């Protein structure tokens, strides 16, 4: 596109017409092959100048937002919570320390504590696995969709519940999917 320079106001003296503006050459210098690469300072672009983030800060933030870190965090949290829950339920359970050979014998304190510990560990492992799976799938689904709303937790709840229940058959998988999805939707609704 070539353009002639604009004419002056009517009645005034006309300036002599200059050479036409060659847009193609100008564009090549602006966005094409002849563009010189420049160092743009992102702090000067926006309206409010902010100090740029250092490389270490960016790396730390990237690690803390990543999916494996979130899954590991949920795993550890689930382990602690599961351990506490297991020990608590073992405390209110009357069958702890039950000896099948001699049902009327009062179990010793050592046996009861061992049983409580085992139960706590087993609950803790289950909770840790479930928590890690749920957190991992939720992070992956959220990264794929690019949105953060209630559907992420429902979808990942269905996947986690389905994966857990699928080991006991297809119907248990479907029930697990629905149940876990409803549970995570309720928790999400409560938290938002």
């Amino acid at each position, binding site marked *: *596109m*070539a353009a002639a320079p604009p004419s002056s106001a009517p009645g005034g003296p006309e300036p002599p017409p200059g*050479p*036409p*503006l*060659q*847009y*193609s*050459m*100008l*564009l*090549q*210098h*602006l*966005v*094409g092959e*002849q*563009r*010189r690469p*420049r160092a*743009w300072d992102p702090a000067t*672009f*926006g309206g409010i100048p902010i100090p740029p983030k250092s490389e270490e800060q960016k790396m730390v933030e990237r690690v803390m*937002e990543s999916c494996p870190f979130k899954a590991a965090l949920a795993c550890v949290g689930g382990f602690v919570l599961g351990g506490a829950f297991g020990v608590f339920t073992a405390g209110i359970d009357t069958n702890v320390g039950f000896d099948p050979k001699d049902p009327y014998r009062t179990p010793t304190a050592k046996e009861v504590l061992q049983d409580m510990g085992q139960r706590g560990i087993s609950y803790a492992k289950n909770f840790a696995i479930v928590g890690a799976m749920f957190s991992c799938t939720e*992070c992956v689904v*959220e*990264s794929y*969709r*690019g*949105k*953060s*709303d209630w559907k*992420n937790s429902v979808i990942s709840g269905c996947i986690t519940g389905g994966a857990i229940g699928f080991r006991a058959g297809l119907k248990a998988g479907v029930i697990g999917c629905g149940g876990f999805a409803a549970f995570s939707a309720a928790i999400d609704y409560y938290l*938002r």
Partner: protein
Amino acid sequence: MDPLRAQQLAAELEVDMMADMYNRMTQACHRKCVPPHYKDAELSKGESVCLDRCVAKYLEVHERMGKKLTELSLQDEELLRRMQQGTGTA
């Protein structure tokens, strides 16, 4: 038009162009990726991922449009030159 003058003009215009592009890109990507719910001050994972993708696409579109526009302006100038040659020799 000599290349040196074109380069000087481009250097002046580039700052304006970059600032304008940055403003438009921020507005467009904010409208697309950040829903107006504001329960939390931090950007969530989904929103950060969406913003990364939005900026990458915007810059790619900007580059392609610039190349296409350069092509079209070359064609236009070719046409104008042929017309001028035609009237010159006529």
